[in-house]
Each structure stands twice: as structure tokens, then as C-alpha cells.
């Protein structure tokens, strides 16, 4: 269905110092796919948020634990999966950042941003443990790419 799909896989240790690296891979890939500057920015933000969650909440900053990021790209879309090796969580039970009592919380907006900027965001548990966040963003194709 998706012709010429490519997969890029990236694994880092759980340290925030690698978030820029993941972001720059993301920027490179969204440029290859042909996303515009603004879409590319929000995709990279969503990837950052998910990687930071994987490091912080999933792997609890244990730098021996890996975060696996997989990018599947085609001309029509980009799918990004971020996997950690943590205990998992129930994404239906996280506080709503728009609730007036949460409005001044210093945290709790990451997943909300991911859901706003990506077309699809799915959370699942890996059979061997840990969380997988899968995000999809479609590209509005205005002209044929080479």
C-alpha cells in the first residue's frame, strides 16, 4: 500500500542529553518526507515529548535502559514509535491539562500536545514490558516528489 516505505531505527540510552539527537534525526526525516517547516516543528515536538516521557516516566532516568525510536516513512506519512522499558501506565487515567484545577500545573501537557499535533497517537504495552507510543502524521501532498 505504502510504496517506497523506509524504516529508520534509532536506539539511545535514557539520558536527556540525547533528546536533541533524536530531534535532529526527526528534522532530517521530516525534511526527506517533505513536510513544511511548521508541521515538521510540531512533529519534532511530539517526538521530543514522547522520548522525554520514555526516559523520565518509563525508564525512570535509568541510563542503562534504552529508548527505541522507529520511524517509518513513505511519501504520504510518517509513523513514529517510541518504546521504553518501564512499567507502563494507563493513558486513560492521566489528568486533563485543560481542567481548570490543572491549568497552573507545571507539568502534564506532553501527551496533550502529542495528541493535538499528530493525526493519531496510540499507547500500547510491549509484550516484553514497557510502553510503546505510536504516532502518525499524514502529509498533505501538493506536488509529486522525486
Amino acid at each position, binding site marked *: 500500500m505504502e510504496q517506497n516505505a523506509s524504516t529508520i531505527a534509532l536506539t539511545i540510552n535514557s539520558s536527556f542529553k540525547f533528546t536533541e539527537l533524536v530531534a535532529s534525526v526527526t528534522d532530517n526525516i521530516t525534511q526527506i518526507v517533505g513536510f513544511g517547516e511548521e508541521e515538521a*516543528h510540531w512533529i519534532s515536538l511530539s517526538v521530543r515529548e514522547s522520548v522525554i516521557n520514555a526516559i523520565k516516566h518509563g525508564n525512570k532516568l535509568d541510563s542503562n535502559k534504552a529508548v527505541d525510536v522507529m520511524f517509518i516513512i513513505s511519501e504520504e506519512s510518517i509513523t513514529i514509535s517510541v518504546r521504553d522499558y518501564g512499567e507502563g501506565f494507563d493513558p486513560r487515567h492521566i489528568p486533563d*491539562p*485543560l481542567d481548570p484545577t490543572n*491549568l497552573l500545573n507545571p*507539568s502534564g*501537557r506532553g501527551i*496533550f*500536545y502529542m495528541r493535538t499535533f499528530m493525526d493519531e497517537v496510540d499507547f500500547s504495552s510491549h509484550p516484553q514490558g514497557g510502553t510503546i507510543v505510536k504516532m502518525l502524521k499524514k502529509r498533505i501532498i501538493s506536488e509529486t516528489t522525486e
Partner: protein
Amino acid sequence: MSLTINQRTTGDVSILDLSGKITIGAGSVQLREAIRKLIDSNNKNILLNVGDVSYVDSSGIGELVNSFTNTNKAGGILKLLNLTKKIQDLLAITKLLTVFETFTSEEEALKSFNK
């Protein structure tokens, strides 16, 4: 890289000109420090100029909220100047534009503190 903070004073308003990133790795800590120092030295009218901030993530937004709350708690007020389109978007979709007073003109911003 990271965040550069330049401090100016006009009347009784402290203006922080931020440039760079406010993200989990960079900027959040510096911003918190800068705000703490202002509050500690009793400067409670704070204007954050974010016009040259190139990248903000949810931690950065959280740090802006922190700055606002901490200033408030100390009996002061923190306002935002020169939102970029992206910061504007991030604040808008999390309903934080209802929390922050924001300005596109420094003059207007300064005036507003003395009302």
C-alpha cells in the same frame, strides 16, 4: 544553544530578554533561577520577552507557568512580551492565554504594570 537571559529595568519593571530554547534539557533551570533572583531582591513586576525564544516544549511551557505562579505567590505579577507564533499556539491550546497577560508592544506592556 541553551537559553540566554538579558536583564533590563525600566521604572519598577524588570524585563528579561530571553533567547534560545526553553526545554527540559536547556533553559528551564536558568529561567527558574533568574525569576527566583528577581523575587528574592523584591523585583515583582516582571516582563518576559520571549520574542527570540526559538524552541519551547511542554517543560518550557511548564516553566513559564512556574514563573507566573512563583511571582504571583510573592505578591508580584509576570507578563509575557512578543509571543512567537509557536509559543502562542502552545499557550492557546492549553488555555494558558487566559492565564497570562501578553503584549506585542513593550511600551504597552510597561504601561500596563502602572495601572
